[in-house]
């Protein structure tokens, strides 16, 4: 059955590939820049369809105003003041102050670049499409009549959101800063956490039309070179029109696109991403979104939170166990309730069975339908609450709680125990944010299985899930590591979080070093240095 679906999808993707090859875009503008200024300007004007926010400023400069040049920039994304001050003014006026300017050849782009332009981020371009790329990325283009090269001077002015606490990953203890939409600021945030020469940033531009900056960031000495190479290959494979969010990249590079489980993790928090880079993972930053991708990902990561490491180990361990339990409740809660009440009533303690029966006395629907109704209502409420503006969203919450919680029970449509089961499920589903999506899908699957075959169905579903999880890989790392394959060193940080001074080895399945890779000295257990000196008197 799945074979058929997979075959169909594969067929479609092959078809797409074939079609893509026939209409390979993007090759048409690669002509060299002409030495004649007018020809270039005409070409640029026609390519940009005379867009109104493109400024083309022709001017004469040099000592005797004999040299002709043109400055092209898109005024919506560039800093006009900077361009006036640091490009136009030196060319037209400051040049007069140069004592030895008389002999200089101002038709040569190198001379201008070295002597007159007082901005650092500039480069020479010789091809028309390179020129256009720079122009669209926010550069001012200086064209000189008689030169075969143009100068692209970067002067971007994009209003960036200030650094705020991320909405998705709020913490009680820990840094409040979160990534922003600007990729350079995001790299800066990581650089501020890891001030090491080993920290590498590689930049790619992906998207035929969006030309989005995608940066991969890693620690050269720690990260596995094979993983980095694999990421490069997968990124270069992407031929698409636009990358609007890191989710696009995630879906193009993930290992198992048919899985409900994510194999690429994401985060909005620089400290979390920095911690993962230090473990040997690779971060993928995408311009235009605060969500940074990190690979490889393992399943256990979803249950770890940055705060686990900031808090002392005892509380962190309790919370982690609660997270595991809550994931089980959120995926299996309604399924187990339906399986028990419809198929295995003998497993329910007698008193509980009687009170469940009391609650269901007036309910006209079968339990499975009741569960579906409630889950549907819950997901509806959640979706509505997220999309609506905040003041209205609260109303939705109140109405939902009243209608679904109170009224539907009193009207005899829903049994009170089902309300408890679904609300427990709902609350539990938020405790593990990284797996909320997979949990929601699995919840419905298990519920259907429970409705068809009871506990037998649920066990079959669980078994299939387990097999699937065990076969998943994320950039070569087994998804269930360190449980499968068993790694005792890794187990220190799974169900309980051992004290920080015991966690001195890097995760082996991430770095793949043949030797043990240490991130701290293994004898860090704190104790008073000199016990005799410890007397406060």
């Amino acid at each position, binding site marked *: *059955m799945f074979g058929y679906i997979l075959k169909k999808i594969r067929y479609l993707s092959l078809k797409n590939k074939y079609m893509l090859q026939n209409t390979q875009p993007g090759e048409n503008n690669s002509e060299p820049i002409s030495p004649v200024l007018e020809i270039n300007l005409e070409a640029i004007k026609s390519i940009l369809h005379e867009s109104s926010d493109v400024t083309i400023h022709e001017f004469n400069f040099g000592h005797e105003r004999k040299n002709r040049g043109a400055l092209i920039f898109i005024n919506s994304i560039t800093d006009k003041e900077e361009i006036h001050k640091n490009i136009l003014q030196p060319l037209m006026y400051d040049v007069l102050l140069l004592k030895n300017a008389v002999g200089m050849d101002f038709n040569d782009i190198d001379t201008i670049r070295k002597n007159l332009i007082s901005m650092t981020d500039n480069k020479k371009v010789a091809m028309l499409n390179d020129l256009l790329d720079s122009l669209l990325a926010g550069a001012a283009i200086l064209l000189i009549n008689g030169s075969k090269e143009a100068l692209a001077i970067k002067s971007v002015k994009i209003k960036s959101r200030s650094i705020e606490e991320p909405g998705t990953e709020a913490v009680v203890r820990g840094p409040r800063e979160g990534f922003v939409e600007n990729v350079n600021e995001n790299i800066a945030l990581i650089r501020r956490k890891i001030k090491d020469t080993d920290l590498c940033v590689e930049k790619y531009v992906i998207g035929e039309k969006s030309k989005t900056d995608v940066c991969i960031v890693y620690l050269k000495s720690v990260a596995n070179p094979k993983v980095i190479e694999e990421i490069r290959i997968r990124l270069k494979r992407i031929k698409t029109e636009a990358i609007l969010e890191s989710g696009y990249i995630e879906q193009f590079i993930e290992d198992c696109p048919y899985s409900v489980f994510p194999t690429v993790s994401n985060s909005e928090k620089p400290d979390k991403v920095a911690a993962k880079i230090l473990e040997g993972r690779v971060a993928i930053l995408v311009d235009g979104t605060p969500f940074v991708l990190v690979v490889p990902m393992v399943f256990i990561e979803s249950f770890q939170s940055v705060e686990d490491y900031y808090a002392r180990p005892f509380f962190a361990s309790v919370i982690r166990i609660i997270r595991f339990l809550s994931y089980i409740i959120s995926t299996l809660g309604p399924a187990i309730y339906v399986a028990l009440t419809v*198929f295995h*009533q*003998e497993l329910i303690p007698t008193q509980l*069975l009687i009170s469940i*029966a*009391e*609650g*269901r006395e007036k309910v006209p629907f079968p339990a499975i339908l009741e569960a579906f109704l409630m889950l549907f209502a819950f997901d509806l409420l959640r979706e509505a609450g997220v999309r609506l503006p905040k003041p209205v969203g609260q109303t939705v919450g109140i109405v939902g709680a009243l209608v679904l919680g109170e009224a539907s029970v009193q009207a005899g449509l829903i049994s009170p125990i089902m309300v408890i089961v679904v609300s427990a499920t709902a609350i539990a589903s938020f405790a593990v944010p990284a797996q909320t999506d997979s949990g929601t899908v699995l919840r419905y699957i298990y519920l259907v299985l429970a409705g068809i075959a009871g506990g037998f169905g649920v066990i079959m579903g669980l078994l299939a899930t387990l097999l699937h999880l065990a076969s998943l890989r994320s950039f070569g790392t087994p998804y269930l590591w360190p449980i499968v394959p068993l790694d005792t060193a890794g187990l220190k940080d799974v169900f309980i979080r051992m004290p920080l001074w015991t966690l001195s080895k890097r995760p082996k399945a991430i770095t793949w070093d043949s030797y043990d890779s240490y991130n701290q000295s293994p004898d860090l257990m704190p104790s008073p240095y000199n016990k005799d000196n410890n007397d406060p008197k």
Partner: protein
Amino acid sequence: MGKEMKFSVMSLTLFFFLSIALSGCLGAREINDLEIVIGMGVDKEKDSEDILLTAQVVKVDAAGGGSGNSSDGGGSKAFWNVSSKGSSIFDAVREMTHKTGNRLFISHNQAVIFGNDLAAEGLQDYIDFFLRAHEMRPTALILIAEKKASDLMDAKSETEKYPAMNIAKFVENYGYTSHFYKVNMKDFASCLMSGTTAPLVPLLSIVEEKEGKDIYVSGMVAIKNGKMVGKLNHDEVRGVLWVLDKVESGVITVSSPNEQGKAVLEIIKAKSKVKPELKDGKIVMNIKIKEESSLSEQTTTENLANDKALKKLQENSAEVIRQEIMAAFDKSRDLKADFFRFGEMLHKKYHKEWKALKDKWDEIYPTIELKIEIDTKIIKTDLLNKPVSPSD
């Protein structure tokens, strides 16, 4: 592609259709459609071969009934005692659907009570269903009514909504007195199958009070070959339990050292070991009992918290225990019913000899000798270490 696709589409539809259609009869049924049975009584019908089955079914709408009005005031009961006749238990169970509409759900059956007439005539024929039915739990209690089982089913306790639950509750808590013990279907069946052991089953009696009737366990009955052969009172039952190592707690009343009052001891710990001995065709059972108790009450002004008095009390309590055991053993000799499980013990130790003994067990049993060794100890006197009396 076309043919292949058609096939896979067909198999896909078939898969979904079959998986739902075939598994639809895996046993799904809504809770609303269940008649939850919490207790069953089996009686003999007068002047016929039929039996009368009474099932206590939870009345779901009255069970909650708006938690405010506790159902004893309004008179609406939280349960419904349905009865039906049939030639066999299963026959009667299915006959009952004529009245209930839904099939009985007996997984939560707490207790099966057999009527006196039926027990006297033989339980053997009626026990099969309760062990065979897959819904029935082997942990359900088995009990015998002093008169009719159906009379017990509506004697409601003041604190418990359901009579059957109440019965199950006080049978489970036999340990406070050790005057009887709980026997469930599985234990009962394994005793029946051993051949020589005569199982004991708690006996339920009714006492009429001003407001309705109360049920209590008045002792146990011995079943031999599936038939009720005799009744044991509380002390006799405890005599059996001393030997079977089933005494949990309880009260021993002994006379105080100066014979002027009583001292009441609470059993804290009791352990027994039985070693059978077969010598020249003579069977001796060596019973060793270790008991620890505390002084819980005294009705004299004498100070009992001294070595001399305590020693005397220990001797007295050992004597009480011995008397209880002997009383029980005398009874079992009279009834020729081996509820001490001596037969099983001999079987374990004397494999070869057992074959010969087994056939003549009824004759051999009364000749068994008991050697009882009792070690009692009073380990504490609770909160007082001298009586509350004008001291001299």
